Structure formats: C-alpha cells, structure tokens
C-alpha cells in the first residue's frame, strides 16, 4: 500500500514533469497501394505527445490514430515492438527517420481491432473492422519508407509567448490591486 502510494505519486510527478516537456506531434504514413490488402491507398494519420531529445521522441502518450480518416478504436496501448517475436515493450521511440523508430499503437495486444507499428524497418497497419467490398480489413504491410512518412510538431505557443502573457496578466493584476487600494 505504501509502495503503491509512492509509485502513484512518483508517476504523477513523472507525468507532471513529462508534460512539462511534452510536445504534441502530428504524423502520417501512407502505404504504397501495391502493399495494401486491395491495392488501394491506406494512410495512417494521427497525433501523440512525446518528449523529443535529439531526433528521437519517447515517453509517448495521448495518441489518437486514423486509418483513411476512420478513428482507431481505443484506448490505445503504446509501446515498443519486436517484429520477430511480436512482443511489446514499454519503450516506444518515434523519429522522423523510420529506421530509428520502434513503436506500436494498438487497442488490444491480445485481440486487436486495429494496430499500427513500425519496427526493424517494417511498417504494418491493420484495422479489422474497416472492411472493403470483399470484407477484407484495411491493411498495409511494407518496408518502412521515410518517403511515406511525415512527422511534425503541432503548432503550440512558444515560451516567450507564455512569458509575455504572464507579464500581461501580472500587469493587469497589479493595476487591479492598485485600483482596489485606491
């Protein structure tokens, strides 16, 4: 009990610290139609929060994904992925360079309805309930290709903007206090 409390406090702290450094990213991966289930385009889009160090993003949270515009069912498990064994770990890493990326997003590791992973140079996405006219799910599998991948930070206020806003709020507060004292 004591341990759990400590752990929760620790994780809450970590989340707080993490969120302090987290950035929201947008991404998109478009499979070559030659590498999809029915020869038609399969594009995964989405966002996630993560901490960027150098060209690697880790501590991934708050992901939301779409397959050809249809949302992944969730909530989503996020982790690293071993493409040989299928084992999922906690260490998701995402980069603009897919060769350095290792991640999986899935709603269920035992019986997934949808998933998207890039690992060991391979990209795989499937959404079992988004069916084509032949009842085949929406699916793509190919060698992970940077040309098919976009990754960018979402537009958020810069720190200077926060300082300016804080200064403005302080000034407003100061003026208001002077007025009340007067």
């Amino acid at each position: 009990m004591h341990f759990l409390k400590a752990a929760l406090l620790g994780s809450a702290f970590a989340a707080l610290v993490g969120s302090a450094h987290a950035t929201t990213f947008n991404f998109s991966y478009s499979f070559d139609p030659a590498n999809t289930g029915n020869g038609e385009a399969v594009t995964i889009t989405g966002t996630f929060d993560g901490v960027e160090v150098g060209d690697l993003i880790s501590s991934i949270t708050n992901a939301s994904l779409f397959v050809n515009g249809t949302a992944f069912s969730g909530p989503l498990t996020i982790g690293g992925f071993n493409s040989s064994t299928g084992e999922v770990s906690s260490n998701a890493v995402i980069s603009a360079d897919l060769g350095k990326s290792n991640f999986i997003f899935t709603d269920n590791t035992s019986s997934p309805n949808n998933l998207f992973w890039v690992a060991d140079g391979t990209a795989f996405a499937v959404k079992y309930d988004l069916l084509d006219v032949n009842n085949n799910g929406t699916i793509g599998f190919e060698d992970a290709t940077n040309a098919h991948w976009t990754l960018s930070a979402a537009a958020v206020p810069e720190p200077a903007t926060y300082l300016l806003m804080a200064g403005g709020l302080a000034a407003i507060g100061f003026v208001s206090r002077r007025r009340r004292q007067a």
Partner: protein
Amino acid sequence: MNKTLRKPATLGVLSAAVGAALFAAYAPAQAVTIATPVTVKGVVAGTLFTAPVISDTPSLAKASQTAASVYAGATVCFDANNNGVCDAGETSTVSKADGSFLITGRAPAPLIADISTKATNGGKPVVQHLVLRVAQEQITSAIKSPALPVSLAVTPVSTEVVRMIEANGTNYATESAALAGRLGLTVSETLADPNTLSGNAKTAVMTESVALTNRWAYASKIADRGDVASVVAAEQAAMNVEGIPRYDHIFVIMLENKATLSIKGSAYAPNINRYLSQGNQFTSYFATGNPSEPNYTALGGADDWGITDDNQWNCGATGANAVQDLPTPDKSQPGLGSSPFNATCAQATNHNIVGRANIFNALSSAGLKWRTYSESMNPGQDFRTDSATDNAVKAMDHVYAPGTVGPNASAIGNPNLQLPMPAGLYKTKHHPGMAYQNVRSAPEFKANNRTLGGGQWDAAMVASSAYAVPAGYDIDQFGTDLESGDVGQLNFVVPDQCDDMHGISVSGTDLSTKKSGTASDCSSVSNAVSASAVSPIITRGDNYVRYVVEKIEASPLWRNPNKRAAIVIMFDEGNATSGFNSCCGWNPVSTNVDAPLVASNGAASRDATVAGYGSGNKGHGESIFGLLTNQAAAPKQLVDSDYYSHFSFVRTLQDMFGLADPADPFSYMNRSKYTQAFIASNLTLLPEYAGSADGHFDSVRPMNHSYVFPSNYTQKQSNDVNTPAQTGPDANQINLWSLK
C-alpha cells in the same frame, strides 16, 4: 481460433514507467475467451511447367522445363465453410503481380486461392482452373503474435497437406511432417514458396509441385463439370482416378515366357510364390501378343501395332516410318565391336512406331520420370542394340546345393565351368519403349536407360571387358539410384535373358577337364513347362527376383513409410494361342481391324494407317502378376480374379500417375481406351468386337477390382492355368492397390 488470454492492460494516459509494469501483455489478470483476428501476408506460388516437345525427330524434341512461379490474379479467400470455393460474403482479395496478397480475418479459417483462367502463372495464362488450399491449422500454428501477420505460401504442396488431413482424418502436424518426410525435407522447406528455396529442396518441392498441380487442375476440372460435389471431394478423387491411388514409385520386374501353370505352386519358384501369397495377386492376367516384342511394346503403349516377332526396331521402317535416330547405332561405339545391330532391316512389318502415344512420353509430359534398368549390357554400350559377346569377361557356372532347385537331391552346376559372357543377355526386344520412335528421340532417353546389377558377369565385366569401360561406369545404377532416391515414378526392371527365365545358350569350358559345358541354369524351358519339371532357369529367375525385391525393400525410399512404393512381379506372356488366350482389348481376327480409333472434331473415326495392324494383339495366355507395396496398412494377401491385360496395366498406370481423364476416353492411349462402355458407344467402328459374346472379358478396365462377377458366372480361362475356373464373385472386392 479462440484463445483464452488475459485481458490486456491499456496505457494511453499512464506514464511510461507505470505502463511498463502493466504492459506485460499476456500476464494473467482477467480471463476472457476471445477470437484472435489474423492477418495473412502470403504468396500464391507454384511452378510453371513447360511440357516437353514430343517429336519423332530428335532435333525437334525438347525436354520439359520447370521454374518456380507465382500466380497473379488469383482470388484468395478465407474459406470459412471449407467448400473450396470463395463464396459471397467470405473475406477475399486478389493476388498481385508478384503473387503476394494481404488478407485479414476475424478468426483463422482455411485459406484458398481460386486460380481461374483469368489469372497468370509465371506471367503465362493459366489454362486450367485450379484451387490451392492452406489448412487452418497451418495458419494458427504460424501465429506468433496477434500483432504479427502470418507469413505463408499457398502452394500445390500446402494443398496436398490439406487433402491428406481430410483423407486420413488427422491433423496438420501429422500430415505436414508426413509430406516433408516423403520429400526428405523439413516442414518449413516443404511448405515454402519454391521461389525462396534453393538446391535439393527447391528441386524436390518443384517436382512435387508439378505433379500436384496436374492433380489439382484435374480436380477443378471434374468439380467444374459436376462430376463431384465439391473441390474438396474432387481433390480426393484426383488422387484416386478410377480407384487407382497415386504411388510415388512403381518397380515392374519383367520376367519371361512362363504361363501361370509353370510358376504357380512351382517348387522351382519358391520366392515368387512366397511374394504372391504375402502380397496381392491378379490371377487372370493376360498377355497381349506373342512373342516378347509385341508384349513389351504393348506394355509401353497399350498396343503392339501389328508386330508379331522379336525383330530389331528398325525393321520394315520405311517411308513415313523411317528411322530418325540421330545417330543411328553403329559399331564404332563402345561395346559394339561385335554388335549384331544392322542399320538396315528389310521386312514387311514396320517395327518403328512413329507418332504414337506411350507411357514414357506421357509421364515426361506430366513432369514425371521413367527409367528402364537393364542387366548385363556391355559397359557403355548403346542400349538400342543387343549386347554382344565378350570373351574377355568370364564367370563361373552357378552351382546349386541339394534342395535349392526344387527337390534336387544332388548339386546342380559345375564349379569348374568357366563361362564367357554370351551375346544377347540384353535384348532391345525386352525394352518397352524401344519400338517407339518418339521415345528413342526424347532428350532424356539415354539418361533414363540405366544399368541393373546382380548379373553373373558383372564383376568380370568391370574388371576385364574387351570394350572400353567409360570413366565412372556404374554397373548397378539401379542400386545407386535406390540409395539416392533418383528413380523414376515408373521403373521397368529388366533382367538379362538368363535371370528373366527366358534362357539362351551359355556354354564354356571346364577348367579342369578342358571340356566344353553348358551353364547350369540358363537353358530355356517351355512357356508352359510343368510346375514339377526340373527347371533350373526358373529357379535362377526366382532367385533374381528375390535379389531385386530385397534390394528395393532395403532401400531408403521403400523403408520410408511416407513414400508410396510398389513392386510388380510379372511375365511378358504365357503360352496359350487358342481358346481364351486373349482378353481385355483383344483383337482376335486378322482382317478388318484398324489401329485404335482416333478423335477428330469430337467424332471418333477409324485409323487405317498401320499396315498389317490386324496381325497383332492376339494374346498369349495368362501369367503371374504379383503386387507388393511398402505400405504397412495396405491390405495384403488379396486376390483379384477380374480380367486384365497389358492394356489394363497401361490404363492403370495412366490412372496412377494422373495422366488421363476417365470422362474422355481419348485421353487414354491407344487400346487402353477400349473399355466396355467405349466399345459399346463405338461398336459400328469396331468390327472386331461385333462378335463378342462376353463384353466384359473382351474389354479393358483399370486394375481396380471394382467389377463383381455374377454369382452364376464361370470365368473364362486360357489353357495355361492350372487351377479350376472360378464361379461367382471374389471373396471381396478390395482394391489390390489400396494404400490402407
């Protein structure tokens, strides 16, 4: 597949640290039963077989080619109801140009590739619809993780695993291992896309794939025309054409000139009689001609084409029948210094059969192999010629202790008698393919004719032949091939004229007395010699049969229970020339008989192009036909007394190797198509059958034991059988070729 797994934890809003603790994806927490969805990333693969060019002209004949291939444009689906069809509502996709496909399913199910004629194989149009399958268990066994697609190949070989599971009521693990064991490969290699394999594994898988592709194409053909209820049933039927199961290898041991009464129960043939009683026997087996050459020619192609003698294959070969061999045998080749072969042979009857179907080229056309193994040829000789005398090759006379030649009370043979190798131990008249020009012209002809060991002069031949012994000469390629497995699907095992009971004159000199003497066991005896008459040559042949059978039975392929192998022990002819001496495609009259009917634009017509045709196919009584298989579960000690002949055997071989379609009589070669139904439907064109009093006796059928003799029917027999004619049906109707 329903799997009981723990409900996974989710992590979306938790920190990475806590997530790591909870992300033990499959640690038990809350048991729920769920269906595991599956994605298959596969390829529809097989082989592109380019059939050989069969031609009488050697320069035009070409060997077959086989390449690993992929099928593009095939409909791939999860066949949830396992009916071999991609039904409406079943998840499907189409294989791409590289044969690949991606397909998802909410739960694993059997997977099939429906390959229509709109698809391509190796870039070439598919000419016959076929369906390839993958067992559901193969898919489930390949699932490593729900997050990983299953990688597999849909191939003719994977289809065979499914068929075996369904035929035997077993499972994927059992049958994939069995098939791998049959091919001598791992399961992974066996079920791989052949494009990804190399070396022996690739060769083995491609060879099997070609054979299976033919079967599955036939399966879809009979399913599509409604002969059977479904593709699933059709694939079983395709492996049992007319009730004849597919064998991997059959060895036909050819013996000479002995009627049933000379062998059955003979004390001079204890081994053959033992094999007959241990294995299965066809007790009403009829020769088709007289003497040897027409019988062997009939065994090669279900007709003797009017040949009624043992003359050389180039005899009477003029005009359109002119010999086209390149080169024609000559005496300059090794072993032919004293060859009896003559480049010309004027005779009225043509012995060079041109442009006719035969079992050899039929096998080659299906990507299957044939071999003839012949004993006691001169080293390196051209097998289109008879073997020659070699006085530099000497062997001692065989000596038989008392009690080893029937009831002999004293030894037979002279231990001091030295016998030079005589001429004619090997005879071309005993080669079932020799008369066919397009067999001799085939690129594989030379390689497919091989040596057979066990001969009296073998050791001396290698050591002291007067002829140049080729480097690396293997005097017993049969033994070598048995060890390696490089035998044919059909193997004619042809002993020399002493070991086959034929008999020739073999004389030599007693080294102590310097007097001439005759070999103890190569003097011929009558075709209908009494079973009690002293017949050392029968014992010699009987011993040789034992030598060959034991050699085959000791081979890795025979001992591999996953390979289906059979040994036939048979004679070319019996003795009867009158009465019921001929059955099953018979030709009793010498006039108004033409070569087998031909089909033109869907209509049958007579073929009067073979001069003297009516002289042949007149039968020569009954002889032994025994059958041994390596299948432990196969029924044994069975007797089938139905009427069969060489034509029946050729039809049986066509069924065994999937070379013909019973619904198309003209797909059977030559006289093997003359079933009772075929004769009845073409009777106006077949005057030789107009006077038939017993349509069953006179017509051809596969050796499948399906006919039930009426209870009041007394069987016809030739007069060279020493058992009473049977009345009524056999004790049972079990197919003697059955595998289980």
